[in-house]
């Protein structure tokens, strides 16, 4: 440690630390625009100029390393003169249109100008005007306001890995723009809204909705992937107006995926359910809660002596409290047929989910093998961590049915169809010394497989098995082989949880019957919690048919589309994650509780409260909770230890000439996201087309007799023998991916 003096105050620092960081740690304010702790040093705004004793010129604090005994003055006449000069230059061409600027009230330029600017501008020439470009549905641009700090440019280069923005032109004509009029496609693009210190890049969905100072901010946890990013939800008169990241180095750092940031725009969709409804004689009656819950009890009662006739489907995004109460209630009633593993079609073996490494440990990895994952889309912020590891020297190998566009360098890849992925992974396992079951024991091992196995034997390595593997018909083999491979190489095996609370559902041992069995056997009565089976499973209309055939469907849901209104008998409007208190367990097993941010619209109630009262109505003991905390406390006691073993399935799943692989858009993952219009217009939203290597205009996909014809996009990145079928979209529901075959 060394000592420096800032404004006469002695501050301890490490030799070589940048002055601005040292000052920040001592709470000594230094104005800045281009500096950002997560980005490289640009030193271009010159706002942080300070006086350093002995230096002839004022020095930029962001780029000046401290040395022992250094004397710094941040408010001396020399420092102030430099800061005021820079401030004046920044403002001469700035439009000063604060009254109509969304950044007003939370603008760094405004804040700094308040302290360092003059009350009257001396500049009387014409101001610069910069034309705006439409960069997509998420980010609004007002480039005339840009102060050229290049934070957004550096974000693309250094963080997201997609250099979509750059500075073109020079002098006053320098302009931040996309590459030849393209739009911004990164799955984490919204972060540049936070990074922009002025109103040049603002949120398009939030545009002109409210002023910053009118908003009420509350901490929450993002519920659209398994990372559990920490967020702040901003409401205006009780309505969610926007979501911004809340810093948590262990999870999301300072970032947020676009999905977590903009999903809130789906909250107030037209089919939002606001009143409890009971179907009588084919007509929906809006009723009071009491009447609705009485109706639930009344409709369930005939089946309670035959609990095997009742099935329960719950969303893996539901909170711990919701899942726990639903489990407790159904347990008491003798109902065991419960499922949350909705986007899975292979249940041959139990596969324990979980990221075994902390996210900071992911950054430290020396080698990563990704098996069946479009990492960027499945878990955008985990992808960032892997990217950091790669930039720091780690190698990454990919085993996938498609060479997904990556934001970092892939050292080697095997792009093959799923049945072949099994054989390739088996070959790597064999190279690592694993004994393989019949059917795989004969796989040919090449130098490539040996190299892959060797790479995993290094210190600090991991295998990530992702959503593409999870949704495949070969999930059991892929997971089991990954586990064997890890055992042989010392790598950590990570079966990636995808939805917000899969880890919670797993910890509570919620599942009692596999989805496939449930669909096969059907049920007389069904309770659903936050599920749209046609989109949330890989079974499309087949899943809907199970509900249509049931005599009673009790549906706890925030939204009710036409299908739900058709198959349900009772619709209970429940809150989304933004409108309830609850707990989500993230991929690394961290339990994160959050308070209710705002009320759900209309009469909609948090689901845990609905279940609690339903317990009373059904005369079940132990449902007298007052706070969500009490539910959580009990739930924690009920946590079951998941088995760590992954068994090899008895027989191998069959491959085929052409294998249909489900493809899930990152903006089709849950019912809130699917209703978020801006995300549906963004890059990566679902497209009703098959993607394959085949040079055909269209393809017909059939489940037995039911067929759909889809336009086919030929893409060289797809493995031979693979046809990607989009799931969770209306166009493919009749021939869903779980059973679809390509018709010759």
């Amino acid at each position: 440690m060394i000592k420096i003096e800032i404004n006469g105050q002695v501050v301890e620092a490490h030799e070589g630390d940048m002055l601005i960081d040292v000052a920040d740690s001592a709470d000594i304010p230094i104005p800045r625009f281009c500096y950002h702790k997560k980005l490289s040093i640009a030193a271009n705004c010159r706002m942080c100029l300070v006086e350093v004793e002995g230096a002839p010129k004022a020095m930029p604090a962001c780029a000046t390393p401290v040395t022992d005994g250094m004397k710094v003055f941040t408010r001396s006449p020399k420092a102030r003169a430099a800061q005021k000069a820079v401030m004046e230059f920044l403002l001469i061409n700035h439009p000063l249109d604060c009254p109509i600027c969304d950044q007003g009230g939370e603008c760094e330029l405004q804040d700094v100008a308040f302290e360092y600017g003059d009350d009257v501008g001396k500049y009387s020439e014409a101001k610069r005007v910069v034309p705006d470009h439409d960069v997509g549905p998420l980010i609004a641009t007002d480039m005339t306001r840009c102060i050229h700090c290049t934070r957004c440019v550096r974000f693309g280069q250094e963080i997201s890995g997609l250099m979509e923005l750059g500075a073109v032109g020079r002098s006053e004509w320098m302009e931040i723009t996309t590459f030849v009029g393209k739009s911004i496609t990164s799955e984490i693009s919204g972060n540049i809204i936070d990074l922009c210190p002025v109103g040049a890049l603002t949120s398009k969905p939030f545009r002109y909705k409210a002023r910053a100072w009118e908003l009420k901010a509350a901490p929450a946890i993002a519920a659209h992937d398994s990372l559990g990013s920490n967020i702040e939800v901003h409401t205006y008169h009780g309505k969610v107006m926007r979501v911004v990241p809340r810093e948590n180095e262990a999870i999301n750092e300072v970032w947020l995926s676009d999905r977590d940031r903009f999903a809130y725009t789906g909250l107030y969709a037209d089919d939002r359910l606001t009143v409890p409804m009971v179907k009588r004689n084919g007509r929906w009656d809006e009723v009071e809660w009491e009447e609705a819950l009485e109706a639930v009890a009344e409709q369930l009662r005939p089946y309670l002596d035959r609990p095997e006739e009742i099935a329960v489907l719950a969303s893996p995004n539901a909170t711990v409290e919701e899942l726990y109460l639903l489990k407790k209630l159904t347990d008491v009633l003798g109902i065991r047929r419960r499922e949350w593993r909705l986007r899975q079609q292979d249940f041959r073996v139990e596969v324990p989910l979980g990221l075994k490494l902390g996210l900071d440990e992911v950054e430290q990895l020396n080698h990563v093998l990704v098996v069946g994952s479009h990492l960027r889309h499945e878990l955008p912020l985990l992808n960032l961590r892997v990217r950091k590891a790669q930039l720091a020297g780690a190698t990454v190998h990919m085993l996938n049915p498609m060479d997904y566009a990556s934001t970092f360098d892939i050292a080697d890849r095997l792009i093959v169809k799923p049945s072949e992925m099994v054989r390739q992974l088996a070959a790597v396992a064999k190279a690592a010394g694993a004994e393989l079951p019949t059917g795989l024991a004969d796989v040919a091992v090449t130098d490539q497989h040996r190299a892959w196995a060797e790479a995993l034997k290094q210190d600090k390595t991991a295998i990530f098995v992702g959503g593409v593997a999870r949704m495949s018909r070969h999930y059991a083999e892929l997971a089991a082989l990954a586990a064997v491979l890890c055992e042989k190489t010392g790598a950590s095996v990570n079966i990636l949880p995808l939805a917000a609370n899969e880890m919670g559902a797993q910890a509570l041992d919620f599942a009692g019957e596999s989805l496939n069995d449930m669909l096969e056997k059907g049920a007389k009565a069904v309770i659903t919690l936050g599920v749209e089976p046609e989109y949330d499973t890989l079974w499309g209309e087949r899943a809907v048919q199970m509900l249509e055939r049931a005599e009673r469907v009790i549906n706890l849901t925030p939204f009710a589309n036409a299908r739900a209104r058709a198959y349900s008998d009772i619709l209970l409007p429940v809150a989304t994650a933004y409108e309830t208190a609850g707990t989500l367990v993230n991929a690394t097993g961290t339990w994160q509780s959050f308070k209710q941010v705002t009320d759900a619209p209309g009469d909609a109630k948090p689901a845990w409260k609905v279940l609690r009262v339903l317990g009373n109505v059904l005369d079940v003991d132990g449902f007298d909770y007052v706070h969500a905390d009490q539910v959580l406390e009990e739930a924690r006691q009920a946590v079951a230890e998941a088995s760590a073993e992954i068994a090899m399935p008895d027989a191998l799943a069959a491959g085929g000439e052409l294998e249909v692989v489900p493809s899930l858009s990152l903006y089709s993952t849950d019912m809130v996201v699917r209703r978020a219009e801006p995300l549906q217009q963004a890059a990566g939203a679902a497209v009703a087309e098959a993607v394959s290597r085949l040079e055909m205009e269209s393809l017909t996909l059939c489940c037995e007799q039911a067929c759909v014809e889809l336009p086919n996009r030929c893409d060289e990145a797809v493995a031979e023998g693979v046809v990607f079928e989009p799931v969770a979209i209306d166009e493919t529901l009749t021939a869903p991916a779980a059973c679809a075959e390509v018709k010759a």
Partner: protein
Amino acid sequence: MAEIPLNECCYRLNHLDRSWDIDVYMANGGYEVWKKVLAGELTPQEIIDEVKTSNIRGRGGAGFPTGLKWSFMNRHAPGPKYILCNSDEGEPGTFKDRDILRYNPHQLIEGMMIAGYVIGANTGYNYIRGEFWEPYKRFDNAVKQAYEAGLLGKNILGSGWDFDLYTHLGAGAYICGEETALIESIEGKKGQPRFKPPFPASYGLYGRPTTINNTETLASIPMILAKGGKWFADLGVPGAGGTKIYAVSGHVEKPGNYEVRMGTPFKDLLALAGGVWKGRKLKAVIPGGSSTAVLPAEKAMEMNMDYDSIAKAGSFLGAGSVIIMDETTDMVKALERLTWFYYEESCGQCTPCREGTGWMYRIVHRIRTGKGRPEDIEMLKDVSGKIMGRVICGLGDAASIPVASFLEHFEHEFRHYIEHGCSIYDRA
């Protein structure tokens, strides 16, 4: 006036027919030093010592001692190192390097080879100004000849030493003459200066240790080593040795490049260039290129063309680009053109230069078009003062210096414009 010795170093062959051919160069002692170096007859340390003895200071404008710059490089540090030649001669008034590229390219090549050898660089780039198409072709052809003669490439003349030389044509940005912007440009990026430190000697081209020298500096090296550092030092003045090429332009009878000895009196240089044209009187001189301070005639006539003497007169030797202005020159118009140049050429990276150069131009333009206001002069001084010393590279300062110096010496001309809406030479 005594006879002034001309063209003793970089231009020594310029009078010969096809002086750019390797045969002509070799017939005049060319590549002899390089062969001695390869044969181990001159060690890197001896070369550095000789260069230090020569008192040569960087000819690109900053005047940094070349020997000292070279000594910053660790020849034995592992990994690639680079020698770069800055031929991005773009400063208004400067055209001295162009004639080295055109008429004596091999001496420059030999200088680069030697410099590369001294600092341990096996690769060199000559970055040539984008508008210099013909000099670019000429230089590149000379490189080809050197390769064909076995003087460049792998294991040169069996010495075990490799040296490859590439010619890089710029794309027309003044800022790329700034050494770190030049590096960015070679790397294929937007030409913008880097923040320093780190300096190129530790983090240069592709992040590797790099030395950058001006064309004239490097072209002088073979002569320094052939004739000795003392010979070179003795040509000049104490603290700054050698000859210096002065590019004389503006209102003279014979504009052009004059390679004379450092310390030659300005009035002698003016006489060499045929004196002020049309028999007019001298009004002002910009002695070192557009970014050096303008001097009124009386100060200029007393100074000698070396660093100290020009500094004493209130300006800077710079790149030795002497712009002569006669008694009819409208200084407001002259400054308007200069401020436009810096406004147009600012890279846009850092705030004071990006915003301030346009502001200065607009004020001067307003004054020149008869719309000036009494407060404009103070505002101009204020703006130029606010840019100075607060920018990443020298361009911001370079833009401010002309404004400050024009106002220092010729403020009355600006006032006249403001008060009368026209120049002092216009009839009211």
